[in-house]
């Protein structure tokens, strides 16, 4: 547990804080001692000020989960920062880098609780039906065009079934159609967000190449589906 500064300052006031350059932040944080403790206390205050803005659109400060979330994320951020000091490349202010880590941890937690009760199976149930069977063609004012469209739909559906693995298809449906965060889909598929993004990217590339092989352009397909 990383404790607050000696004297247990609360209600952090960034105005009393010494301005540190990136170099000084790193030096202070690298070696255990009073300088490190002071730097950690300052960083804690900075992270918590930032979290106020991060959480703005996600969670009311009156929400009972708010204080514990802030505390947990702050603690996890400090630990991660200390663990990864060497990976900081100095391309931004040190504190901006720290904020980027805190934001990722905070939103990860918020997404987890927001989607907690949603299972992938229930989410995708209807889509799977759609892929399995197809409704009989409805009579339309222009039957010929309708037949053509249906053929194209069938063709694209077939491509999705042939080019994508089930995992890729399910991930794309959950993310693109149902708006589930990649992070949450990844959790349910026992992978991580980075790997799942790449998996979906591979899928998109394969589909795109297949369309090209079939002599279809993305715009063309979209155009036909749009008039439906």
């Amino acid at each position: 547990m990383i404790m607050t500064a000696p004297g247990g300052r609360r209600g952090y006031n960034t105005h009393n804080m010494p301005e540190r350059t990136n170099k000084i932040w790193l030096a202070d944080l690298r070696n255990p001692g009073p300088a490190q403790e002071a730097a950690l206390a300052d960083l804690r205050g900075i992270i918590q000020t930032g979290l106020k803005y991060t959480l703005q659109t996600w969670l009311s400060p009156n929400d009972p989960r708010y204080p514990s979330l802030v505390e947990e994320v702050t603690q996890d951020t400090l630990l991660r920062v200390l663990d990864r000091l060497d990976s900081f490349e100095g391309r931004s202010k040190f504190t901006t880098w720290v904020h980027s880590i805190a934001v990722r941890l905070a939103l990860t937690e918020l997404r987890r609780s927001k989607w907690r009760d949603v299972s992938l199976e229930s989410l995708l149930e209807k889509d799977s039906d759609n892929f399995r069977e197809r409704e009989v063609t409805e009579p339309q004012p222009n039957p010929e065009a309708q037949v053509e469209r249906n053929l194209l739909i069938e063709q694209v559906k077939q491509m999705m079934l042939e080019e994508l693995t089930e995992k890729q298809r399910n991930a794309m449906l959950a993310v693109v159609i149902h708006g589930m965060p990649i992070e949450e889909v990844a959790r349910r598929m026992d992978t991580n967000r980075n790997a799942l993004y790449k998996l979906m990217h591979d899928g998109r590339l394969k589909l795109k190449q297949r369309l090209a092989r079939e002599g279809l352009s993305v715009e063309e397909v979209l155009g036909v589906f749009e008039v439906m």
Partner: protein
Amino acid sequence: MSIFERFFRWFSKVLSPRKGKGDPLASLLHKLIAQLKDTRQIELGCDEVLAQLAQFAEMALRGEDMAKLMPLVKHHLDMCKDCSEEYAALLRILQSAI
């Protein structure tokens, strides 16, 4: 099914108002295919983007042309909702400090 029944079914279908994109599979495929428009051969993953997000945000706030300077990060933020939400939060933090 009698001819009358068949006709009746057809008739009611023709007359029933079609909601927006009447075909669920078509609208589903449409959304999936739309993603291909912006698909590129080389794309960054979420972790690579996070590693550059701080720099990206600071430069963007200085008014730099990010599509030109860090096109891969910019593209990923356009494609990935998770990362773009995080970027938006980081911008809120940095803007509050100005």
